[in-house]
């Protein structure tokens, strides 16, 4: 699987390349700026671009802008954005135009090599990856409490769905059967009044749309 990595810190970029290579990825290009990233994506047409959110010159959200540009101009290239901070604003902005081939993870997650590699593969394969810390903010203390109707286990399953995991992934994570997961999912959708098919990415979209509706400024 071909990867382009963008981070202005050489230290972190090399660490990332090391981990990705060890996990079996083929790192075809590295970039230190958003412009360089766009150039590498255009020339190598990788399966996935892994992008630091904060890059020169302003060190604010250049990576996020570049990620949106890649999604716009190269929809076939998956984008995984890495951030130092948990910010709902950035995450929802990135996922606001669909949850296919896109991910938002804290940089900490990279050190969990196997999990990180699986998230990257999932994103490259057309799925999504939303950091558990972001999901817990979404599922957390809500003023409108429709989630009260869910059992703790169902909440757990809802969070894992929001992270972008498949039924099989959830089953592995919770050490239950896939069948049990399917049952939870049906219950959740019924209780929350969400209508969708079982298709993974559409399911994520529906779950996120539902969760975000309680988080936006009400104005």
């Amino acid at each position: 699987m071909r990867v382009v990595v963008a981070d202005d810190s050489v230290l972190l970029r090399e660490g990332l390349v090391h981990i990705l290579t060890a996990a079996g990825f083929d790192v075809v290009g590295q970039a230190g700026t958003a412009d360089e990233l766009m150039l590498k994506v255009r020339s190598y047409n990788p399966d996935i671009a892994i992008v630091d959110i904060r890059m020169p010159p302003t060190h604010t959200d250049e990576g996020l802008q570049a990620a949106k540009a890649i999604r716009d101009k190269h929809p076939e290239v998956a984008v995984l954005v890495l951030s130092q901070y948990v910010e709902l604003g950035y995450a929802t902005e990135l996922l606001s135009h669909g949850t296919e081939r896109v991910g938002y993870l804290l940089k900490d997650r990279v050190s969990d090599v196997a999990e990180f590699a699986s998230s990257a593969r999932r994103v490259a394969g057309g799925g999504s990856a939303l950091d558990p810390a972001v999901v817990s903010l979404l599922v957390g203390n809500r003023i409108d409490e429709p989630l009260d109707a869910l059992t703790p286990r169902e909440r757990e399953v809802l969070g894992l769905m929001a992270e972008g995991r498949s039924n099989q992934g959830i089953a592995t994570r919770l050490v239950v059967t896939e069948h049990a997961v399917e049952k939870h999912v049906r219950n959740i959708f019924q209780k929350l009044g969400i209508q969708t098919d079982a298709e993974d990415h559409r399911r994520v979209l529906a779950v996120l749309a539902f969760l975000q509706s309680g988080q936006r400024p009400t104005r």
Partner: protein
Amino acid sequence: MIIGVAVLAGVGAALLFARSDSQVDRGWYAVLTVWTGWSFIGAGLVAWCRRPDYRIGPWMIVTGFLWLISAVVAGNTAGFFTVGNLVDTLAKAAFVQVLLGYPDGRLHHWPERAVAAVTWLDVTVVQLAVLLFTPSPRNLIQIGNHAQLTQDLHSAQRWTAVALVAVALALVAGRLRTASPPMRRALLPVLTSGALVLVLLAAAVVANESSWAGAEQLVLAQIAAYGLVPYAFLAGLLRSRLARASVADLVVQLGGPVAPGSLRDSLARALGDSSLEVAYWLPESATYADAAGRPVSLPPDDSERTVTAVERGGVRVAALIHDPGLREDPELLQAVGAAAGLALENERLQAELRAKLDELRASRARIVQAGDSERRRLERNLHDGAQQRLLALSFLLGLAESAPPGESPAVAKLAREAKEQVVQAIEELRELAHGIHPTILTDRGLAVALQTVAARSPVPVALSVDPERLPGSIETAAYYLVSEAIANATKHASANRIDVKVARTNGKVSIEVADDGVGGASAAAGSGLKGLIDRIEALDGTLFVTSPACAGTTIRAEIPCA
């Protein structure tokens, strides 16, 4: 010395008239000529003493002497006749010069200079030319006998004189039209007396041309009118005596309570200058400020405005920035300055206080701003330094942990434990850095940044935040206010719900955080709120805390935002 010479010249002129056998009405001529000459000299001396920097005084003295000298024409010998005829009209040119130069005696623009030059030409060269052809047994420089030519030249010269005085008056009138009220008051007497002279001069010329019987009386009346002009000039120059009434009014007004800011209006009325500005002296910064304490810079010397310093007991109090016309009236300015001294000193103290408050406010805002940029710098340093090194370390430990379990499973376990420690450190550092400065606030604004704050709150938060971007300092203050209030509500209030509202209305931003907890909070008790009050007051804002026992707490800030 000048007075002595003037007396002698006057007596001489009178004697010449007395012994003259050529004049019809010798007595009147003698009296009027000497009176007019002395009037000009006397008025000129007074003007010179009062305004040593003006040329008008010397010019009036010159005019007076030229009047006296013109008496030479009354002498009986051929020498007196010739010289007398040559200098006869010089006084009139000097008169035009005085008229044009009023009030400072300088000719500022080219039309004035042109009129003066033509006048001097008329009374010297043309006068000489006329004399050269005047047939008279006493004319020592007669070179031809052309009675008709002489007559024509003579009348041309006189009409030119009328025209020149008219143009000079028109120029003065033009200045009058564009002048400020104080200048207008100074110009008016001069214009009036000048116009009288002009009318009589023109009438005398017409009478002469038509050989009217009353011509002689008109000439005498005209000389008498000349004699009035110096007094009109003096009146214009020394108008302050007339302005005493307005000073008296001012004293009465200032005796009562002076409303803030009304002092300028009172002074403007007393001085008759509605454009008056008052600048108060701030000795500490050696600058001037207006009544509100805002800095004022005095106009440069060559500008349209004039500055008069007001002192009280030898100490500078204020500066009056006024119309240059008032400079003709220094006594009035001094009287007004003296009458208003105490009131000005009071206003000066208030202006000083306001300026200090402004400075204090600005310095507080600067301190907050400096703190904020220092926070940004710190966050950046943490992000680029320690956080990245720890992350890189966690990557390496992650690799070590996931390496195929070879010779030593104990090493992999150690690596995992070390990684967990490092990840813990990264999380703590992240909290710290985010607390120091949330980058998303500067990047995406208050509404977006508060989403995370609200979502992280253990107590449910309902956000209603205007998505519009606000000035950075206000966004920062609002962010910390909301974060602190949510933290307080969570820690102390046992609240079940927190409502956050941020809205911009009527030139101000209002930030409100209300919980349904136990209440009883106060700004003084929580040091967290105390720091926020400083931050909000640095922005000219106010913070209200309403927290009755058992009825929730509402913290509300209002910050002006144009």
